């Protein structure tokens, strides 16, 4: 079997969620099939500037083909398009302009996919909201397996993507919440789908003391790992944590790991260590009392899974339905919606060691059952085999038929009025907590529930 992973950025030093997900997946599937990566030359997700050389490359043994981005993204222009599409009624033309402005606009990558479509059995395409995914799936719809990495943000309400969700060959969801949201917005129940997520190479014996020695961290601390960004809820985290320390007379510190796009408050209990290698990151999580995940938008929190893999409890933002759902399903994390809940939950984890240990134990169990790489690989391979069986049964003619409608013409792009994307998103139902229960226990987790596929 020959597979291509199509992703917006790729590299050993690129740590974005979807990009890391793609790299881990490519490296693990390479043990079972021939895997190539098709990506852009961009390293910076804000501008998509061509930082890496175009052409063939190899990252951790996986062949990578990079294509240059035609134009960089201008945040101001993209912001204007986003406002138009998210907040006001608009046309399909507006949505296409928004997609072009978002990028990474890389027509050469799309042409390459069309050219090599017969050489690969399937294309695993990451991140539905980007240019490469939209046009890439349109180029090879019957061979595309989408990993949407969808969050509950207004982009999900953009009408362009609904045919994509209905027209791909299969969808590998990151969470039950993501699956429910995409089904609600696009009505794609007939598309084969399975909740998989992503695994992680959690070390068996992390060394917390080494981390403490290396970085001079003393005492108990909560850790945040990820981009330090307003969208990730870091401003709120800083505010809540400073209030907590001041009001509760707590000796807990907050250690931040990751690149910062925000000024970190100069507070004696807040330490920013910057970007750390994986080994140190795992040691830091193992040394921490709790991992804090303040993000409002997540399709799957890999770092939360890693914390659970290391037996640490998680304190998550309940306004992100995915994080809240993960906490409930795993029974391994507490969540908060406001300062009072943040303070009480953190106080519980800080003071009740039995509770912290029990949550961590549950987390480790949840991780082992659902997010060990053999489990993830098994789900992907099951899906790929099932699709191959279907293709063989249907014959080559069926495979060549495109399920996607053609792009609207000049008049159609200007005529149709579409609802504001945010309004569409707001009307999507939240996943009921009835979805709680372990992934392993749910039929979807076994890969047998193919949702009619």
């Amino acid at each position, binding site marked *: 079997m020959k597979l291509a992973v199509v992703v917006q950025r790729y590299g050993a030093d690129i740590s974005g969620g979807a990009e890391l997900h793609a790299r881990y997946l490519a490296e693990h599937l390479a043990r079972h099939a021939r895997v190539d990566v098709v990506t852009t030359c961009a390293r910076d997700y804000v501008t998509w500037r061509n930082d890496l050389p175009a052409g063939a490359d190899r990252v951790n043994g996986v062949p990578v083909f990079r294509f240059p981005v035609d134009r960089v993204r201008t945040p101001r222009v993209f912001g204007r398009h986003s406002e138009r599409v998210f907040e*006001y*009624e608009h046309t399909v033309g507006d949505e296409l302009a928004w997609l072009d402005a978002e990028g990474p606009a890389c027509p050469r990558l799309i042409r390459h996919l069309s050219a090599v479509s017969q050489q690969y059995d399937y294309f695993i395409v990451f991140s539905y909201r980007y240019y490469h995914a939209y046009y890439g799936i349109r180029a090879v719809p019957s061979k595309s397996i989408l990993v949407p990495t969808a969050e509950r943000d207004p982009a999900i309400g953009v009408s362009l993507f609904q045919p994509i969700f209905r027209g791909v060959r299969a969808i590998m969801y990151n969470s039950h919440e993501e699956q429910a949201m995409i089904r609600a917005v696009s009505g794609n129940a007939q598309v084969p789908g399975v909740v998989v997520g992503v695994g992680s190479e959690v070390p068996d014996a992390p060394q917390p003391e080494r981390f403490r020695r290396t970085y001079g961290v003393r005492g108990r601390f909560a850790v945040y790992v990820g981009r330090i960004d307003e969208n990730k809820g870091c401003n709120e985290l800083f505010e809540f944590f400073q209030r907590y320390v001041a009001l509760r007379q707590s000796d807990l510190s907050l250690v931040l790991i990751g690149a910062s796009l925000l000024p970190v408050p100069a507070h004696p209990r807040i330490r920013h260590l910057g970007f750390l290698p994986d080994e140190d990151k795992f040691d830091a999580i193992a040394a921490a009392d709790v991992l804090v995940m303040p993000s409002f938008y997540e399709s799957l929190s890999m770092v939360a899974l890693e914390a659970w893999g290391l037996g640490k409890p998680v304190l998550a933002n309940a306004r992100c339905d995915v994080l809240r759902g993960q*906490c*409930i399903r795993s*029974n*391994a*994390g*507490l*969540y908060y919606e406001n300062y*009072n*809940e943040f303070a*009480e*939950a953190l*106080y*519980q984890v800080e*003071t*009740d060691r*039995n*509770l912290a*240990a*029990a*949550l961590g*134990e*549950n987390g480790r169990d949840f991780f082992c059952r659902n997010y060990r790489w053999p489990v993830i690989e098994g789900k992907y391979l099951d899906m790929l085999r099932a699709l191959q069986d279907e293709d063989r049964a249907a014959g080559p003619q069926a495979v060549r038929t495109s399920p996607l409608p053609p792009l609207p013409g000049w008049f159609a792009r200007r005529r149709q009025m579409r609802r504001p994307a945010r309004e569409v998103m707001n009307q999507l139902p939240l996943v009921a*907590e009835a979805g*709680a229960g372990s992934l392993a226990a749910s039929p979807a987790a076994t890969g047998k529930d193919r949702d009619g596929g």
Partner: protein
Amino acid sequence: MADFSIRSDSVNVEEIMRQIRARIREKRGVDYTEKEIRELAAVKLEQFLDPSKVRSDLLEQYRELQQRQMQAEAEVVDEISLFGSPRPWLRRVRRWLRPVLKLFLNPVALMRASRVNVRHTDLLFEIVHNLVVETTRLSMELKTLKMRVESISSRMDFDERRARALESVVQYRPGAAAEEAASAAGRKDEDEGEGEATASRSRRRRRRRGRRGGGPRPGTEEAIPSAETGGQTAAEEPAVTRAAPADRPRASDRPGEPARAEGQPRTEGGGNAPETASSPAAPRPSADAAPRPDGHSGPDQPGD
């Protein structure tokens, strides 16, 4: 330590979160929930808001306005109404000329502007609604605070009156006990009956203090050692001085008098009244005579 312990084999995150939320509610006490505040704002608005400043039917008016706006939106925003007319011939002409008219203006922008207006009206409605809710909440808080201030000020008045009454009674003079003993010996025979009465009063007071229970409270007569009980020492005396109200001149403040050292007992000249505490003939302005915060001015215990 945490208020509840959890066994490691039976962790239920949802249950823990329910407990945490219950604890937060307990800590907030009888605080109103958002829902309750909204109900109050909607139902009992006229009871809390100042009618001269905020109309009590403001919400209703804005709701009606919002409905009217929604109806108006349907009439304004579509292209038919923009180029329409009640006269059929004019409608027809406009329809023919519509492509030409569209060259001179952008009807989409007009429609958008109209919708933006409607959206702004919605926002305005929300703002006014929130203002009403906040005003209600503040009004209630203000009433509560006023009541607390009144309560505290009445308690303060009571304490001040009580302190003055005690000061006019309790005076300490060194050597007063010796003088008292000498004069008492001379008057022993004639005053024997009255002495017994004083002793019995003292006993009654001690009994009463015992019945009240608890330690001495600051500002009460238990906190001020009285000469009557015989428990006052030279070291304790400045406490009596400090308890005096600020408007009463101290010995050191008076012209012609030297400043008194800390701990030194007040001299005879410092007192402004005869030693009535030990004088059974003087009227006894008891603390019991002062009004109590609950308005009851009678004795604390029956039979006193």
